[in-house]
């Protein structure tokens, strides 16, 4: 059906263009290039039909379901049972049903099939008649040689505009997917317990028998997110301790000292670090860095966990180096040369110029790049999932294992999830807090960098 519409669209393009040529041959002046006549007709042919077609595809299952289940409506079934009956009906009509076949279900399976075939044929009829009507309308327009370029271009512009809404739609989608589950979560767990509680032990929520009613008191002391937030910021802090000095210094060196040749090779090499998938870093941290640190610690008589925060944070820091180095490199190179010249003229050495003139001038941009790095560190998932612990300890010892927001989300949601379970909802609540924190960081960072750019442009 879809292919059919597309084919019709193409043929109507040729029809429209030929019509334009015939008009031309009668020595009338065309109002647009011939292909616009074709586009005009093709749009009128395909778009209305396509809209009806997709609306039908969206609503057909719901309507069929309503019709089928109307037979059962006065028998006092629960919603879940009705859903089950519907699924059984569908399975039976496809011949894949393996359970016990009751006459009721057999009857509705037959009804289902007949409804489907009615729907199929009426869909074909309606779509075809729409096509005929709209093509006839457009053809008449063309024949009277009215304007065709303007409507076509307006249509294209509308398409472009809709595409640009995709970004907004994605944001809306993110917020929507998070917000409902989060609200449900906070209906069971008070916000206060979540933000200030110090015990995170979501596995407890699994012990519950699903037939029991929700008992909020059961969950007190289960979803306290403080250890997780603390772990997240702690690991991010360790990462930044690695990334800021190395990233910043290499950015400064590349921008101010390095010869063209060194810059040409070193910059892309460092940026390779940013292109390596995070799961690879995670493997590296878990297999090499973690045990290595443990061995060193043991030889010094320290008790180091193989899944220490230090290993995860350190490797994460390596990952963030290129972000900070290339952003601060950009920022420093965009400091105007006149500032440098002024400083050199006063007799300052290069390092003094950098420290006292360029660095303060570039500071807002550098801060912006660091904030972006922090936001990366907080949102980083695979390294912590693989290299850091999964139990949420409230600790500030870098040698012990801690857990982060992202790691907890993965732990909770890996495998099958039951929506409506507080544990699943907790993951969405964590996701919401992650989204909000990184959103704030990003907005501030982007604004700072933008302000800075405008200052020197």
């Amino acid at each position, binding site marked *: 059906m879809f292919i059919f519409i597309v084919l019709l669209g193409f043929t109507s393009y040729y029809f429209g263009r030929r019509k334009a040529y015939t008009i031309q041959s009668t020595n009338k002046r065309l109002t647009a290039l011939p292909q616009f006549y074709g586009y005009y007709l093709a749009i009128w042919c395909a778009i209305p039909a396509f809209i009806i077609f997709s609306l039908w595809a969206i609503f057909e299952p719901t309507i069929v379901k309503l019709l089928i289940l109307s037979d059962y409506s006065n028998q006092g079934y629960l919603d879940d049972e009705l859903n089950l009956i519907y699924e059984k009906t569908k399975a039976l009509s496809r011949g894949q049903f393996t359970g016990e076949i009751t006459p009721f279900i057999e009857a509705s399976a037959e009804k289902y099939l007949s409804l489907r075939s009615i729907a199929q044929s009426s869909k074909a009829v309606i779509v075809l008649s729409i096509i005929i009507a709209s093509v006839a309308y457009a053809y008449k327009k063309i024949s009277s040689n009215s304007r065709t370029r303007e409507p076509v271009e307006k249509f*294209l*512009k509308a398409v*472009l505009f809709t*595409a*640009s*809404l*995709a*970004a*907004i739609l*994605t944001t809306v*989608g*993110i917020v*929507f*997917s998070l917000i*409902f589950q989060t609200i449900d979560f906070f209906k069971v767990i008070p916000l206060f317990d979540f933000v200030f509680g110090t015990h995170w032990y979501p596995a407890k929520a699994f012990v519950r028998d699903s037939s029991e009613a929700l008992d909020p008191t059961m969950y007190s002391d289960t979803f306290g997110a403080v250890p997780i937030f603390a772990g997240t910021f702690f690991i991010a802090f360790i990462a930044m301790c690695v990334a800021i000095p*190395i990233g*910043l*210094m*290499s950015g400064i*060196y590349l921008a101010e*000292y*390095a010869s063209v040749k060194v810059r040409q090779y070193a910059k892309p*090499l*460092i940026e*390779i670090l940013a*292109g*390596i*998938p*995070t*799961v*690879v870093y995670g*493997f*590296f941290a878990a*297999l090499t860095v973690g045990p290595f640190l443990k061995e060193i610690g043991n030889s010094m008589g320290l008790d180091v966990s193989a899944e220490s925060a230090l290993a995860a944070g350190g490797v994460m820091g*390596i990952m963030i180096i*290129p972000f900070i180095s290339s952003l601060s490199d950009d920022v420093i190179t965009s400091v105007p040369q006149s500032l440098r010249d002024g400083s050199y003229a006063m007799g300052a*050495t*290069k*390092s*003094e110029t*950098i*420290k006292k003139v360029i660095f303060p001038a570039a500071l807002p941009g550098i801060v912006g790049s660091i904030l972006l790095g922090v*936001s990366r560190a907080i949102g980083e*998932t*695979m390294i912590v999932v*693989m290299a850091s612990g999964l139990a949420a300890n409230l600790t500030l010892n870098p040698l012990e294992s801690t857990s982060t927001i*992202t790691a907890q*989300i*993965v732990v909770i*949601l*890996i*495998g099958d999830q039951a929506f409506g379970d507080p544990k699943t909802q907790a*993951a*969405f609540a964590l*996701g919401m807090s*992650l989204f909000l924190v990184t959103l704030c960081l*990003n*907005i501030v*960072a*982007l604004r700072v960098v933008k302000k800075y750019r405008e200052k020197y442009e």
Partner: protein
Amino acid sequence: MNKNKEQLLNKRYKAEKRFRLYGQSAIFMALLFLTIFIFKIFSTGYSAFQKTWLIVPVTFDAELMMLEQNPSKEDLKDADYYDIALKSMADLDPNANEDQENELKRMVSYFFEREIKRELLNDPSLIGKTKDVYLTASDDLDQVFKGNYPRDLPEDQRRVTDYQLKIFDQLVELGKVESKFNLSFFTYPDSREAELAGIASSFMGSIFSILVCLMIAFPVAVLAAIYLEEFAPKNRFTDFIEVNINNLAAVPSIVFGLLGLGILLAVFQLPRSTPLVGGITLSLMTLPTIIIACRASLKAVPPSIREAALAMGASKMQTTMHHTVPLSMPGTLSGTIIGLAQALGETAPLILIGMVAFVNTIPGSPLDPAASLPVQIYIWAESAERGFVEKVSACIMVLLGFLIIMNLFAQIIRHKFEKKWS
């Protein structure tokens, strides 16, 4: 006084040198990490491209296989191979007791039966004869042969028994153990047994996800970029779209996974664990990257091109579609490839939408459940068996290889086709 000045100057010069050294060592550190990293991956991974085979004489005994005289091809397919397979392994040590026979059996993969079957199907005349057949060694023996397995551990801490090692060493001496290129690593789907696990299923999963991602993200992103760069009026609303795009580019990838889970799976009821859902999720992630790249390259097209087209009587739409957009394509394409490379390495969102499920079939369409290369890395890295460690590294090498190729491709497009204005 003068001396003081000189001292001060010396101090300043020293500070200068020190500062320079800091910079150099920072770069050195960054590059050192990169080197260690790559070295580590290659040194643990290269051995996975070799696979150890045991060469075992197999007697194709028609009676044991329950075959009648002059069997047809169908009969051969249905025949019972387990007994002759078992017998040929047990024959390695004629005076083995029952336990030891079991251990002998576990020296090869559970696939050995099928390997023997394939041999016979290739050459039906082998019935009643004896032939040396290549059997995949178990992953533990594979590791022993590659020298990755410590032999000096006490026996109860090893997964290989002393008896198995003894027989294995005998075989090695006889030249009945061979290491060959591990083709099955590329052609087999995932498996719980390290010696049989391959990347074919996750590879196809990655390809399908990336294709879905490309088909959605590229057109939408290019159209959006054209609108924002060429047609959008400067007002609050377009500013809002811009802020949105810039933010989306920095949203953690796992949040997109939650989006896929909460909307695509829960609301739209799309099938779980499929590259289709994975591709859609990834396309939302790559959208901002491509939009930003496309806008930058549209901006780089000089206004004179547009003015010339407008002066010749082209409409704004014609100017854009016929002149500006084609000229901006090299930049857009290289941005797209870089965005896709990012998407190819993404793991967390795919885990959330269920692409971590164990899949031991090779997916044939985006609607079949599948894993992807990075997720495969995660799955293998989480399994305890020693044989998987080298597999992970090898899988990483394959993935990195793809990323390097894609990035090189992007560079080539940019340098070869991009016009330098000015």
